[in-house]
């Protein structure tokens, strides 16, 4: 029995969003009587942290504390339209829609504050901590709580805003086939190190080292979280998950977690990740989509590392021990 080590590399350019009949997302924002801002979306947070990042984007644009923002993703039937949280589009599309809505709401908020303070709205600044004051004289100030109350009960104004981001449908140019299916592209590169057991065909991933160019990491801890989770999914796709390893009938496929295999906490490699920020001109505060590509580059990197270790080129996933052993046997035949 020998264990052979190998190293492989793969890179990915990952598009943000997709191109069906156009790719829009909407956001509506309104202030409550007490100066909280409700962002109404029909975008769904399925654990990736959409609500947190959208609250950050809204708060930053309005100039209020993040705690004052309520993200309401209650109902996809009645909420403003969103294509959905997929294609790594959430941060970019919905973020841009929120910036547009928040700018409109901020303008009304400053108008009301200007009337209350009897100054020009252009002279007002937000402190990001819950107050608005005159530029250069912080003592001439009003709380956002009082601005919201005054808007509702004195001025009859709705502090609200509408936002939409649309990536229009792109048709290919007949001559060249060129088209613009997505917006900005994120980039990643992974180096995988594996150890292949030539007797059993088993592959252990020893390390995954990646660099991710994400535009801007709006929430660095959550970017890191996506990267580690995605790397695990990459290992899982590369080596474990399949619905049909059971010959000959698909009905013999896995029906539960005893048969549908995934790496457990004991199968983790050493991770090292570097995040590079090159803000995208069209991204909210420069952000691109980071979600899905984190599971992409590890897969070919692992396949290349296996080739480097034992000279076996497997071109279908997952790379099971059986495929590795068959490959080794073919080499020795």
């Amino acid at each position, binding site marked *: 029995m020998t264990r052979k080590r190998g190293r492989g590399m793969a890179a990915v350019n990952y598009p943000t969003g997709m191109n069906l009949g156009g790719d829009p997302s909407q956001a509506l924002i309104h202030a409550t009587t007490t100066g909280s801002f409700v962002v109404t979306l029909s975008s769904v947070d399925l*654990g990736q942290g959409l609500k947190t990042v959208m609250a950050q984007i809204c708060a930053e644009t309005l100039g209020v504390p993040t705690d004052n923002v309520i993200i309401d993703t209650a109902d996809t039937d009645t909420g403003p339209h969103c294509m959905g949280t997929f294609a790594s589009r959430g941060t970019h599309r919905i973020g841009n829609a929120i910036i547009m809505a928040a700018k409109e709401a901020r303008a009304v908020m400053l108008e009301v504050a200007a009337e209350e303070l009897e100054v020009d709205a252009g002279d007002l600044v937000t402190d990001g901590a819950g107050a608005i004051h005159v530029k250069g004289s912080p003592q001439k100030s009003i709380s956002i709580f009082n601005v919201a109350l005054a808007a509702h009960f004195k001025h009859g104004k709705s502090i609200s805003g509408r936002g939409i981001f649309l990536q229009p449908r792109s048709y290919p140019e007949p001559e060249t086939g060129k088209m613009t299916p997505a917006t900005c592209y994120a980039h990643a590169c992974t180096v995988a190190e594996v150890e292949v057991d030539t007797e059993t065909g088993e592959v252990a991933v020893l390390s995954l080292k990646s660099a991710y160019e994400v535009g801007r990491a709006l929430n660095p801890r959550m970017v890191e979280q996506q990267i580690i989770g995605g790397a695990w999914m990459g290992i899982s796709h590369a080596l474990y998950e399949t619905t049909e390893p059971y010959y000959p009938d698909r009905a013999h496929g896995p029906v539960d977690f005893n048969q549908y295999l995934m790496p457990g906490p004991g199968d983790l490699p050493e*991770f090292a990740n570097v995040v590079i920020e090159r803000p995208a001109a069209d991204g909210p505060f420069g952000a691109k989509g980071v979600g899905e590509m984190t599971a992409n580059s590890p897969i070919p990197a692992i396949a290349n590392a296996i080739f480097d270790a034992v000279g076996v080129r497997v071109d279908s996933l997952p790379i099971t021990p059986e495929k590795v052993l068959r490959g080794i046997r073919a080499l020795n035949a």
Partner: protein
Amino acid sequence: MTKVPVEFTLNTREQNEFVETGSTLLSALRDRLGLYGTKAGCHQGTCGACTVIIDGEPHLSCLTLAERCQGKDVTTLEGLAPAGALHPLQQAFMDGFAAQCGFCTPGMILAAKCLLDRNPDPTRDEVVDAISGNICRCTGYEPIIAAILTAAQGMRKPARKRA
């Protein structure tokens, strides 16, 4: 269906229930008592989402008959923060971004609590072993392992001060 009485301790309180024979503890907790902290995942003991603590040991509530809990001491996630203050494990999971969709989190935290109760100073390998029956689809496990080690460190500190 025949119903049988069961008396057990649930999150330090005495609980008297009539449960259907052959029904699971998971069903009693969620369907009868409305304690949704315990998650129903695979219903066959392979995912760990339904983990609860019975007499100090982690158990899969989907494979535990409710009537077999007679006289036992059962702790669910709800029992970890009875007064609203988070348990150090819960705090460490939050601080360490150790949850995404959150479905595995209650089982992970209770499996980790059993480990830390019997071994306050675990190695990384011991943490991995303790949660190896719990499946997570989002985090890649790494933040969970880190959170448990952080919580263990934090929980040991007050003990040293008292000594």
